[in-house]
């Protein structure tokens, strides 16, 4: 069996599974026979759920039609409560990007320092151990109170949740660079700065990138919850707003898009990881 035939068969199974899922979903939510006879005026008020026995849960066709509508006009802006999905996603991605980049800027240099200094490593360990398991949303009230800006508070929450995996992986990666590579640099009288960039950074890069990949996943998980809290804009706010509108169709569409964007972010980091990974 060649690899390509395996991939082909796996793809086929995936399509079959998707079709089965959509089929069951469609059957489960389709309209049944009219449940009761009533005057047309009353029926109009009650809607299809009461008159046709239609499930309140939208079927795949409803979701598809609505999704197509969204895809045709991703960037419309009809005021605070009615913006295109593209705009909402762009807000979320921008928040995640800002908070995440700030975390990269802090975690990697700090991780380098901690990894290279056993003293700092021991001294900071209790703080990291206590701060790491705190749910990022627990910081939200404190952030809102001190920063006094909901949008920046959301960015702060992303920052604080994505810093830990990166920091810990950088520390671990830097501290576990093989002694022999360090010795090579030492026998060549390579200075500390040059050693950090030519030996430690490339040696620790795969571990650091793995931490960054974990972080972006967590950041994308957290942004939805954070935006539900702070409101205003973003895909998390959109989900909550559509729940308040009782538009399950839109909620399902948002869930789908959150998944796809999360996957793309992960794939981007996976590609970077592959770029810095070296075979031994």
């Amino acid at each position, binding site marked *: 069996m060649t690899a390509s035939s395996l991939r082909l068969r796996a793809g086929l199974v995936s399509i079959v599974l998707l079709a089965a899922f959509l089929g069951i979903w469609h059957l489960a939510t389709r309209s049944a026979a009219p449940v009761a006879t009533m005057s047309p005026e009353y029926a109009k008020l009650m809607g299809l759920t009461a008159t046709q026995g239609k499930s309140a849960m939208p079927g795949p066709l409803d979701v598809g039609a609505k999704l197509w509508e969204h895809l045709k006009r991703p960037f419309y802006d009809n005021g605070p409560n009615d913006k295109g999905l593209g705009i909402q996603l762009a807000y979320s991605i921008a928040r995640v990007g800002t908070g995440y980049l700030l975390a990269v800027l802090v975690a990697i240099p700090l991780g380098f320092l901690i990894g290279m200094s056993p003293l700092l490593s021991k001294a900071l360990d209790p703080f990291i151990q206590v701060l790491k398991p705190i749910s990022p949303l627990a910081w939200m009230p404190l952030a809102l109170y001190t920063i006094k800006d909901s949008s920046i508070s959301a960015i702060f929450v992303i920052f604080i949740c994505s810093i830990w995996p990166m920091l810990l992986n950088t520390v671990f990666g830097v501290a576990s660079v*093989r002694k*022999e*590579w360090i*010795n*090579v640099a*030492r*026998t*060549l*009288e*390579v200075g500390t700065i040059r050693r950090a960039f*030519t*030996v430690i950074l*490339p*040696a620790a890069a795969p571990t650091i990138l793995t931490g960054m990949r974990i972080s972006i996943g967590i950041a994308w998980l957290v942004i939805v919850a954070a935006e539900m809290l702070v409101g205003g804009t973003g895909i998390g706010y959109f989900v909550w707003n559509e729940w308040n509108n009782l538009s399950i169709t839109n909620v399902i569409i948002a869930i789908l898009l959150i998944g796809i964007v999360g996957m793309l972010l992960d794939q981007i980091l996976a590609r970077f990881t592959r770029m*810095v990974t*070296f*075979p*031994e």
Partner: protein
Amino acid sequence: MTDKFVSIEGIAKRYPGAGGATTTVFENLWLSMPRGEFCCVIGHSGCGKTTVLNILAGLDAPSEGAVIVDGQAISGTSLDRAVIFQSHALLPWRTVLGNVAYAVSSKWRSWDRAKVKAHAQTFIDLVGLTGSEHKRPSELSGGMKQRVGIARALSITPKMMLMDEPFSALDALTRGTLQDEVRRICLETGQTAFMITHDVDEAIYLADKIFLMTNGPGAVLAEVVENPLPKDRGRTDLHRHPLYYALRNHIIDFLVTRSKTFAAEKPGHDPRNVPVVHIGKPGLTVASDAKPEPLKETSWPSLSRPSTSS
């Protein structure tokens, strides 16, 4: 020994042991090497050979004593002393050329890229890796990796080379070829070399002097054995030299029995005046009881005519 290029003067290495006690790996170790000589150290694991080498390299500091190289006490590592590591220690994210160029550019910071590359290429050619410059270490065999390690060490034109069992991880055939290469390069460049080995034949083939160390902890340098084999010895007829087996037996006897009992046997051993053993020379005793066999076979080729080794 008038010309002391390397002089190890009374070094010791101690580690804090359990319960406040200190473990002494070795102490009061004196050793000297003239310029251009190839010296091998043989001893069992745990006798501190690698520590001695690391101290010479500057990777480790002695607890006591000093090391003088070329008239200067060493402190820390130096580009004058290149190390060939047992595990080759190539940087896996760099190519062959990149690994050698890293060393070259570390020594000559002001050189431009082209000059560094040309210099690195010279040494890659020297170890016979022409054509593999752009391969990564993972694409190379063990022997080729160690060749890169040798090229990297030589490329900085060091005053001496330090080798920590450089060939122990290689198969016998590759090891032989690399020994030939190292021997050729050291003879051509007049390199001073200090090598740790477990392989008696490797020491006999390569070394001018063989340092025998007793077992640790509390290891001492027991004897310095002068290699009686001619400088132009060849691998193929090495074992036909009349003194080959005497030398080999002496070293093996030492490793098998005397390395354990040496301290008890020689209570008056003076670490500053380690006996020099000249195998087979009349008037100088071989320290072991196993006397070399009387020499019946005297048709060693190189004694009558120039070496036939290729």
